[in-house]
């Protein structure tokens, strides 16, 4: 039953996301199309945190570094090499992935708080480097650029200046990214990630190269954060070193935890909840971050497995099973692995 409900919910979510640019303007809320676009982009950064924390048990506070590399990769490729939208996006992903290879080779030798600290240290080093390399990065002022068209052939020109086109491009790339991650996480590599998260020593003793598993996850997470950064650069037509600061990583970590780590779509729900909350509360209260903090504390205390955990517990109760019993069949349908 849970599997069928999960499939139905996934279809409803897909339909709702596809209908956003048509439906919201009818409610005179066209502005929210851009908010949903932003949610989709940021959810990728939260997903990169989740890939590390939820699947291989490494808590990173430095994913903003790869987000920043994604932003600058795209911005510099467009401004200096006249790369188009797709070339810029690819450049962002490649820049972030290469940075993740360099940092990951060193960082994944460590675990727990040592790992968290080294990820913050890397992030800070490159944040200050980007801030001081003003001729290249623009420092705190950032780099502004004009977004190239997404498609320009056969007399058809699609540009990001059109909110609806921008939304569907971001939705398409985000969905593609989630789809690829779903395939990876349910493959033997995904199982190995879980084995490493559950007990790295046991994993090692049955022949799993734990270091390589962690490094692979780290590089994948870097690539996902890079895609998020590239899309955000095109969304804002701007790249700034300030997005490499660790408070951006911290926010992504909170989104992932609130949504539910170890589930594929949890970070999307967490990001959506907290960004919508921010949009609603920040208009009436400038210190809205206090409320975000309180909400996060409440979720962590009363729903430690996040929104995705609440959802699967609710389904388990509905189908008459104990929520505490692990059910791999339901888990697979929920698409966490």
């Amino acid at each position: 039953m849970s599997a069928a409900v999960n499939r139905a919910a996934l279809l409803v979510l897909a339909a709702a996301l596809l209908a956003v640019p048509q439906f919201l303007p009818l409610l005179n809320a066209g502005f929210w199309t851009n908010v949903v676009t932003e949610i989709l982009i940021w959810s990728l950064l939260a997903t990169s945190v989740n890939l590390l924390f939820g699947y291989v048990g490494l808590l990173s506070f430095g994913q903003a570094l790869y987000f920043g590399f994604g932003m600058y990769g795209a911005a510099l490729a467009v401004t200096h090499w006249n790369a188009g939208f797709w070339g810029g996006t690819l450049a962002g992903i490649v820049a972030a992935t290469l940075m993740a290879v360099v940092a990951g080779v060193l960082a994944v030798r460590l675990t727990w708080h040592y790992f968290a600290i080294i990820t913050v240290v890397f992030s800070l080093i490159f944040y200050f480097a980007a801030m001081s390399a003003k001729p290249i990065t623009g420092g705190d002022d950032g780099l502004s650029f004009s977004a190239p068209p997404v498609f320009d052939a056969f007399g058809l020109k699609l540009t990001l200046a059109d909110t609806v086109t921008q939304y569907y491009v971001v939705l398409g790339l985000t969905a593609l990214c989630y789809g690829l991650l779903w395939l990876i996480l349910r493959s033997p590599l995904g199982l190995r990630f879980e084995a490493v998260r559950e007990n790295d020593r046991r994993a090692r003793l049955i022949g799993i190269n734990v270091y390589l598993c962690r490094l692979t996850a780290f590089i994948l997470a870097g690539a996902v954060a890079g895609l998020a950064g590239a899309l955000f650069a095109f969304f804002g037509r701007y790249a700034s070193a300030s997005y490499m600061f660790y408070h951006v990583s911290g926010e992504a970590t909170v989104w992932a935890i609130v949504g539910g780590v170890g589930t594929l779509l949890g970070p999307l729900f967490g990001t959506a909840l907290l960004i919508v909350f921010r949009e609603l509360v920040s208009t009436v209260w400038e210190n809205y971050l206090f409320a975000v903090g309180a909400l996060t504390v409440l979720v962590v205390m009363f729903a430690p497995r996040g929104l995705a955990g609440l959802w699967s517990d609710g389904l388990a109760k509905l189908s008459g099973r104990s929520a505490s019993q692990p059910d791999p069949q339901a888990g697979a349908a929920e698409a966490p692995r």
Partner: protein
Amino acid sequence: MLIVEDLKADIGRVPVLRGVSLKVAPGETVALLGRNGVGKTSTLRAILGLLRRNGGKVSYNGQDLTRIAPYRLAKLGLGYVPQGRGIFPLLTVEENLFLGLEGPPPADIVEALYARFPRIAERRRQAAGTLSGGEQQMLAIARCLVMQPTTIMLDEPTEGIMPKLVAQIRAEIGAVAKSGIAVLLVEQNLRTALKLATNVYLMERGQVVHEATPEALKANPDIVHRYLGVSL
């Protein structure tokens, strides 16, 4: 052949192994016996490189294991069934079984394994954490066999298992040994150890203090009483 020569290891500043030497030849079942805390589990952990060795040598089929990473040992044919089973409770039984393999499991291995462990086959789609203790132990042994080891090391395989399942696990270990796989068994249950072993090492304070066949040990109850604190 697994050869351990004068193996030494510390935990922090405390020496736990003070020169352990033993041999496990192909087809042999070797039992490592001793009271609690004498270093039996530490010996296995040091052989596997999970405990930092600070002296001595471990070799397997002529290959020095000093610089071999623990994850490579399974591929060299050295299997390990840890104390407490070491299964992954949230993964299914089937996922646990084939996790260590690179690529899909060969059909003949899967078939033979399920024929040998019918309870495991029945529950292959179930989360491993929902199995009973005995079934989890079977799963741990089966998972080790999937890697087609030539030697397996079992750390207290009957610990915490229902008495009626102990005989089943003992029979399974016996069958593994009969199939030609060498077995290094750490066991508190003296009856189980003496039934299965072809050679026995007794340990005290991080050292092997006596080596004998099970028959010789049965004929010498004083030794058993002195080093194990029990009577036969």
